[in-house]
């Protein structure tokens, strides 16, 4: 397998009245072809900010300050506006965090599909676009007649599925799903995700799956990146994160969710609250909340322990680094 997406030293700032806040700080990761990568972390840690960067959707006050993002060798950061416009959705598409609100309320669903085809030079013919849209929408389990409806006439779950169908319209190489199912009940959640993963097998795309529901992530992802306060602090195969996480934050995150296979087990939260991003301390960012913190954690930034594609940043990890499959 070769890397489809390669993100190197990505930093994203939000310019505020009190100066710039670095919401994503020097983040590097890669996603391989047909791989499913999970990105987990507490609210506000910068997950959506990364997702937006991958499609370069940031508008002021957000700003990609540094880094490179390459998909299939093409650097997204260096693209011109028109190149970018054509690149988006065609190569990378996204199911937005608020999929419920990301359809234009005054435009019929059919036309919202048509726009995709029209703007990417697939077809200018309404009938042909309609035929394509019908096929897609039936895949996600919505009757094709509903294409004549406006977004408000759909339930939340249907809107979400409609957006997923749209995201697959151009058969992208990478599908980003930013907490695609948070607003849905668990049964519908799994159903939709299962459908997406069936399609993934068929269409052979990669997935970046963002959620803070770790159990869902473990079920659907090959690899998982754990993010804390603008940094990816650990990356490893899902099973490793589940059974043998190294970073104390990964460990805490894992334990703050009920266990996967029914055994309620014990569940504990991580003490304290997420880091205030405008006041980043010296040393490790997790220091104040970490139960394994040592003196050095307050002085020095933890070095990266790398093994193959896997890594973690910690002075005092949970245990021996388990191997990865590469």
């Amino acid at each position: 397998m070769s890397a489809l997406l390669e993100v190197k030293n990505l930093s994203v700032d939000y310019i505020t009245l009190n100066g710039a806040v670095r919401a994503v700080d020097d983040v590097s990761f890669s996603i391989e072809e047909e791989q499913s990568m999970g990105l987990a972390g507490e609210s506000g840690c910068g997950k959506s900010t990364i997702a937006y960067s991958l499609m370069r959707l940031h508008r002021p006050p957000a700003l990609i300050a540094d880094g490179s993002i390459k998909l299939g060798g093409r650097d997204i950061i260096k693209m011109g506006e028109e190149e970018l416009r054509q690149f988006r959705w065609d190569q990378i598409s996204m199911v937005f965090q608020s999929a419920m609100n990301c359809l234009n309320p005054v435009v019929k669903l059919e036309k919202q599909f048509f726009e995709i085809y029209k703007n990417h030079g697939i077809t200018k013919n309404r009938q042909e676009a309609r035929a394509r849209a019908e096929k897609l929408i039936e895949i996600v389990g919505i009757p094709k007649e509903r294409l004549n409806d406006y977004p408000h006439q759909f339930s939340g779950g249907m809107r979400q599925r409609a957006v997923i169908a749209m995201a697959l319209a151009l058969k992208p190489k990478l599908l980003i799903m930013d907490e695609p199912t948070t607003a849905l009940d668990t049964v519908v959640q799994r159903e939709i995700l299962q459908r997406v993963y069936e399609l993934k097998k068929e269409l052979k795309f990669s997935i970046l799956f963002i959620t803070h529901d770790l159990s869902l992530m473990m079920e659907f992802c090959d690899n998982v990146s754990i993010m804390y306060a603008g940094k990816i602090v650990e990356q490893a195969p899902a099973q490793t994160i589940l059974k043998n996480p190294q970073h104390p934050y990964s460990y805490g995150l894992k334990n703050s969710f009920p266990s996967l296979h029914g055994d309620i087990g014990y569940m504990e939260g991580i003490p304290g609250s997420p880091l205030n991003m405008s006041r980043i301390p010296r040393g490790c960012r997790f220091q104040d909340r970490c139960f394994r913190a040592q003196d050095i954690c307050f002085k020095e930034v933890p070095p990266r322990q790398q093994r193959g594609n896997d890594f973690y940043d910690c002075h005092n990890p949970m245990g021996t680094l388990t191997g990865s499959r590469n």
Partner: protein
Amino acid sequence: MNYIFKRLGFYLIAFVAAVTINFFIPRLMPGDPVQMYMAKLYQTSGKIDAETIAAVEKLFGFSKTKPIIESYFEYVGSIFQGNWGFSFSQYPLTVIQALTRGLSWTVFLMGTSLIISFLINNLLGIVAAWRRGSKLDSFLTVGGQLMANIPAVVLALLISYTFARSEKFGIFPAGYAVTPLFRPANVLQYIGDVAYHAFLPVTCIVMLQLNGIMGMRANMINQLGEDFIAMGRAKGVPEYKLMISYGARNALLPVATTLAMQIGFMLGGSLIIEVVFNYPGLGKVMIGALDSRDYPLMQGILLMSTILMLSANFIADMMLLILDPRLRKQGR
């Protein structure tokens, strides 16, 4: 459809309320309008018999003998039949006749100003929001704010003195809606003359409404922060389309709702404008009616203003219905 009926019901109630208020106000005022009219009639013709009194009472819908409820229903009935009584001051003319001319000029003035200011405000609001933080944006923001705070009279007088009455720049007429005694050779000439006379008052009203830029700008900025804009951009929709059919289209919805309110302000403001520019609209008729204590005419004008307001509201509702699919298929 449901929505339309609901709105129509509301308008009917509002109209009846206005008619009711209209019925009671003169009755609560000191002095008896019929008596006053009689006194005037007596001065001019010298003799009044019982028949005349009865006729006058009937004309004005005033009666000392009938119970008030009965006269109320009679009044409401006659209003709906288009029988609004006679004007005191312009006697042989009915109230409707006396206010029709003024009404048509006011509708013309307001309609024109409304369309122009709607276009200008929304276009500039859209551009300001799209170029948020630019010099143009600051200019429009400050300018709009400034305009909103100038009293109507001050601006009207300023414009009128500079461009109508001053020696140097007074290139526009200082009054009337058309040149008196002017015999236009063709329709074009007539339209030109009307536009020439309407130019200053319309400009003045449009300027006073410029704060609408801020409203549209705010709506637009709200819309631009919505997720469907980001999704549109991600889908590859070109920027100008995002601005128009994604942003502006949705930002217009709340504007359509406030349009009706705006018309209310305009109606109030047009009174001042018409007086300053000596424009023969409803405002001027109103002043005339006040001067001569012409109660039926005043009532008629109030009623007509109500009808104008309600029609404007109805048009705004219909616009909203066309623009917003969420209102259309209710109960589905």
